[in-house]
């Protein structure tokens, strides 16, 4: 059988063997946690606590204004010792609540099992999901209750769970699928109910057949959930490419949403978090995370509390294996490099990849030789090399005409460029300029 896939993309070496097959380790709960007040797309939270306050595990400590936001909860019980601006793994500086862990692990009163979750209606389900502060855990961190809210004139026909994990090195979703398949299936079931849709798909790349088997077993009682096996190709886990592979539909370019083609996509981790929230009232305070790369002594997957510093987890893994060149928050294709390992794990942290580098200076950039490898690789069917030419010239209007905003920044073009041109970097610049110009025009 030909496995579902998309057009374009590249084949990457996965480096997943570094961590796959090793059981997930519960990370040491740190003495101090650092909770950024903005861990999602949308309005940042304001602190609900003051320095000196005692907090319980699971207690809501931050909330934002408006609809597109997600509350933030204390991942440990203890005392608030500071509220200060700190580095965020996304590269920005945001206000952060520092809590000293008292080690008692006392749950807040608000965290209690939900009675008869099977009878809840979609509004009640969405409220529980909002209360738990759940956001897209694949890295996009879009508040889930917003995604599940009905949109006038559009109906969700299928909920797709993204278990692709196409980024090299990362295996946290893989391990979650192996270790908690029934939680994922239960979560999917609740999401389907929250959006009033009776079809669910769990999409997994064919390099994770063990997860396929386990999820197939877990989904057996539900006749409306199917497991789809996808060909291994990067970026299969990109939302639009995944929707195309699952349904054959293309999300409209120029600001279209998955719901425009009747699809809602969620990460498998989000589904597991939804199950915990809906059945047990547990907010999002911990997540699966891969720590890998040749710069780490003992690469492994961890179940880690939000707010744990990267450094704490790296120390638990035996520290660095010699001098390292890059620490990447996320996977190596789309993740961001950080300059300091004292940044906290946030809701969207799927992995930390530490690379030693080969010690050699980076290859010099050549002129574009028009080999068109970037064009063949682009899953959005753009002409990356033309966009770069326009970006270098600052020809933003023309770049917009060349659909620069359709770029998903997957990095497939830069990866294969024989001239070693940092295509994505140039395209990002043009994309940001075009989006800023659009925004300025809208505000006029």
């Amino acid at each position: 059988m030909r496995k579902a896939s998309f057009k374009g993309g590249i084949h990457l070496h996965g480096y997943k063997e570094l961590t796959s097959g090793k059981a997930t380790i519960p990370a040491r709960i740190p003495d101090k946690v650092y909770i950024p007040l903005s861990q999602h797309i949308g309005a940042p939270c304001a602190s609900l606590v003051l320095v000196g306050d005692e907090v319980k595990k699971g207690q809501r400590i931050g909330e934002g204004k408006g609809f597109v936001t997600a509350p933030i909860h204390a991942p440990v019980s203890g005392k608030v010792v500071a509220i200060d601006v700190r580095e965020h793994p996304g590269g920005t500086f945001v206000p952060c609540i520092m809590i000293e862990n008292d080690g008692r692990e006392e749950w807040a009163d608000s965290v209690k099992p939900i009675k008869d979750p099977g009878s809840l209606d979609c509004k009640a389900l969405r409220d529980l999901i909002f209360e738990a502060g759940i956001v897209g855990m694949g890295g996009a961190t879009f508040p889930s209750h917003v995604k599940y809210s009905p949109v006038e004139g559009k109906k969700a026909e299928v909920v797709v769970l993204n278990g692709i994990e196409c980024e090299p090195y990362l295996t946290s979703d893989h391990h979650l699928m192996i270790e908690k398949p029934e939680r994922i299936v239960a979560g999917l079931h609740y999401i389907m109910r929250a959006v009033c849709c009776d079809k669910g798909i769990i999409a997994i790349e064919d390099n994770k057949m063990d997860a396929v088997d386990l999820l197939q077993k877990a989904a057996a009682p539900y006749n409306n959930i199917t497991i789809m096996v996808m060909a291994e190709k990067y970026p299969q886990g990109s939302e639009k490419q995944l929707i195309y592979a699952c349904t054959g539909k293309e999300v409209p370019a120029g600001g279209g949403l998955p719901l425009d083609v009747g699809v809602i996509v969620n990460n498998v981790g989000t589904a597991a978090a939804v199950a915990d929230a809906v059945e047990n009232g547990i907010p999002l305070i911990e997540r699966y995370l891969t720590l890998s790369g040749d710069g780490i002594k003992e690469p492994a997957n961890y179940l880690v509390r939000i707010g744990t510093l990267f450094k704490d987890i790296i120390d638990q893994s035996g520290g660095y294996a010699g001098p390292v060149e890059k620490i990447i928050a996320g996977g190596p294709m789309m993740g961001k490099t950080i300059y300091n390992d004292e940044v906290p794990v946030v809701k969207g942290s799927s992995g930390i990849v530490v690379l030693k580098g080969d010690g050699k200076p980076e290859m010099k950039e050549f002129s574009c030789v028009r080999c068109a490898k970037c064009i063949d690789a682009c899953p959005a069917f753009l002409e990356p090399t033309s966009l770069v030419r326009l970006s270098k010239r600052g020809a933003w209007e023309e770049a917009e005409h060349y659909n620069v905003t359709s770029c998903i920044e997957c990095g497939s073009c830069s990866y294969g460029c024989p001239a070693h041109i940092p295509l994505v970097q140039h395209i990002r610049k043009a994309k940001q300029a075009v989006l800023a110009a659009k925004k300025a025009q809208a505000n006029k």
Partner: protein
Amino acid sequence: MTNQDNLLIVSSSPHLHSPDNVPAAMRDVLIALIPALLVAVYYFRLPAVMVILACVVSAYGAELICLKMMKKDMATKEYSALVTGLLLAFCLPPTLPVWMAALGSIFAIVIAKHLFGGLGHNIFNPALIGRAFLLASFPVAMTTWVSPIDGVTTASPLGIMKKATGQQLPRIADLFLGNVSGSLGETSALALLIGGVYLLYKKHIDWRIPGSYLGTVFVLTSIVSAIKGYGLEYPVFHLFAGGLFLGAFFMATDWVTSPVTKTGRIIFGAGAGLLVVIIRLKGGYPEGVCYSILLMNVVTPLIDRYTKARVFGRVKSHA
């Protein structure tokens, strides 16, 4: 990590890169030209060696001088000048005086490549410009052909066909192996095919260009053959004679001067194929590969413009 001696690198994603690079790709093209090089040296002996050396050495020398004069970063030099020199040698007669070969090579690098902006910016295939320049400047020397091994002056297979001198046309098998007169690197379709398959396997070239180029020539000459009753040998002769294989696998596929879109590549190859047949059958020259590709080079930007792919998620507009 606050260790000052070991600062972390912060850079834009992606943080992985394929092992591909321009020098390696050019090296692969040189490797792909080895079979044809061996055949050329076997059939045309010392004169061929002299022409090849003259072209390659002067091309590389001219490249270095240009880079230096234009104050370009010498760290980004690669082997494309060697490829240009070798390809030019392949489409020259083996008996060409060495100084003419060197002059053509220098013209190719200086005028056709560096004056247009250097690697990646030239409009025309530099090797073919070198050949066109020599053909215009030294028409006699450029059309004096010798038979393989013994080096006796003779007509080229396409010349025999064009002028209908009554000379015996070479056998198809000899055309395929390269045991015929002609430019020193173009005679063996087999050797060029081996190199072409290597480049296809290495994914440096797209099958669409050689495929549509050779296919168009074959189909059009088959039609001519059917009308005039020449038989099946006629289109096969056209396929293997002259520089068609060299052009199809190594010249038309030049990254810089061919279209970047998939549809565009098919149009490019088909257009070049049509031009070859027109020049060979109706034009003043017996052979048309060189000009067919140069003419298609001119329209490459236009082809790219009109064959742009539909962006993912956008229905093709009817405008």
